[in-house]
């Protein structure tokens, strides 16, 4: 199974970024700032303001990824799927929502917060903003490697008629819980079936015998993949 990485976008400790404008590889650690509207979009955006922190972080990664692939603008809806791996998901939003329930014995339960107590909601937000009609799901796993989700994305691409699959991870701080191994933030890559976008591709990604390869070199992590993408871009330039 194979595809081409055509876009890379992220929210890391230093903020939002994308592959083709990055001066250096970003760092993910135990600090992050939830993206604000002005970090992503020029115009005022009421809906963005309603999003919870988890959704903002995920949506920002996806937005930067599509922008990197020159796929942000659209007229007709597109058969692109979205898959995101998360450990904590929207647990902080759950806690924030629960506080509104407890405060007034249910009378003050926030409908807006409740709408974001499902971790897949930011994928829906991305779908409607960017016209993405493929499958959209959150994956949470017990054990396994973080790159397993890339294998699942390549399977999704191979087993469907999708033009592409956007896949990555999204994590935000949760009160009382340690930072996950990925660090806080998000990273998404767009994998397409053909290397045809205006910007070209970073390289080929393949799944062979449960191992992920980028340009025929084995990968160990998302950070490794990002480094490989940025190196490939520099070599080409």
């Amino acid at each position, binding site marked *: 199974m194979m595809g081409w990485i055509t876009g890379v976008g992220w929210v890391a400790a230093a903020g939002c970024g994308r592959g083709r404008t990055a001066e250096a590889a970003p760092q993910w650690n135990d600090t992050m700032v939830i993206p604000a509207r002005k970090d992503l979009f020029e115009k005022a955006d009421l809906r963005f303001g309603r999003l919870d922190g988890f959704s903002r972080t995920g949506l920002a990664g996806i937005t930067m990824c599509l922008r990197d692939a020159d796929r942000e603008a659209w007229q007709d809806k597109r058969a692109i799927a979205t898959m995101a791996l998360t450990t904590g998901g929207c647990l902080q939003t759950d*806690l924030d929502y629960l506080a509104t329930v407890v405060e007034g014995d249910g009378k003050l339960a926030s*409908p807006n917060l409740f709408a974001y107590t499902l971790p897949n909601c930011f994928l829906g937000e991305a779908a409607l903003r960017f016209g993405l*009609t493929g499958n959209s799901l959150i994956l949470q796993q017990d054990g396994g490697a973080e790159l397993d989700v890339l294998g699942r994305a390549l399977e999704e691409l191979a087993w469907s008629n999708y033009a592409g699959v956007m896949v990555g991870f999204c994590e935000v701080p949760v009160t009382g819980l340690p930072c996950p191994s990925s660090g806080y933030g998000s990273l998404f890559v767009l994998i397409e079936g053909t290397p045809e976008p205006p910007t070209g591709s970073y390289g080929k990604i393949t799944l062979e015998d449960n191992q992920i390869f980028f340009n025929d070199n084995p990968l160990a992590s998302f950070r490794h993949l990002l480094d490989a993408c940025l190196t490939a871009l520099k070599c080409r330039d």
Partner: protein
Amino acid sequence: MKQVVLSRAALVSPLGDGIDTLWQQLVAGQTAIAPFERFATANYISAYAACIKGLVAKGGESLMVAMLERVAQQMGPVPADCRLLVATTKGEIDRLETRSRAGLPPTSADLPEAFIRRVAQRFNLPSGGVNINAACASSTIAVARGAAMIAAGQASAVLVYAADIVSEFVFSGFSALQALSPERCRPFDQQRSGLNLGEAGVALLLLDEERAQREEAPVLARLAGWGAANDAHHVTAPARDGCGLILACRQAFDSAGISAEEVCAINAHGTGTLYNDAMELTAFGSLFDGNIPPLHGIKGSVGHCLGAAGAVEVAVAARALTEQLLPPTVGCRNPEVAGFNRIGEKQQCLNGNYLLCCNSGFGGINGALILQRVVS
């Protein structure tokens, strides 16, 4: 491509444990939706839900643990090489509620991975399971994913475990969204006024058909096709033209290699909300060129079981194909015009081999499955 079968199904539902009991109750037009006492509902817009009888949490544990135990006992051993796909939207949310009310922070036990591990351990499976969260289409998508894995030869056995409970967390949220029905819900009825929550735990064993034959495993139905698509329209409301559901169903027809005319019945999502049911009828009208086959929904009997809804409905749909009978849609006394003579409170006889099962959820997601009757 390999053929995929549903080999076994175990479930606990508000209408009883096991598919035999649930089926009898559904065919008899029973409902488990009633006022309940799990938590106070005075401040919410409804006092109704469908809760599982005798479901009791042991000291500090979640109801999900007791539910898992009942399902696992009913299911018995599963193949040791099963790949595990879990489908829950909120997992052990009652435990988080209890801790939160006590002013305690969450722990790693509140993360979904802890529940996946618990399910794996209970079924004696190795770690490495995955939870698929696609809102109320979670288990439909999980079944589709499991079937795709088997069809592609990546696995020969997949266990889908789907579960969600009636919790104050979710109940208060749907109440705040004005989505709960203040009375027993009435899916596809002209007077429908919202949904009632339900709860269920379901284990579905999917097998490569050749393996099932070789091991003389039971076969409840063949999973002939599947599809998934996003409306790309709104986060909490369905697209009124049903565009996402239409796409998902067409994918399912294509992967099953059938035309819409070959579908003899539909198990619809049928939540009882104004917009969902209208969207589904619009989508079905388009898919079947106005000639909608007999359809039904079970949420008037067991409530909306959230992430487990699709899995319960797959088990019921397989039985419906076998019996060539569609249970009544409880609460649908005066059907929407688009569903007239196709849905109602009476049983409907079937004459065909393919049944469409579909679910939709927050985030604009839609999942569709085609079940095929297997005649032994």
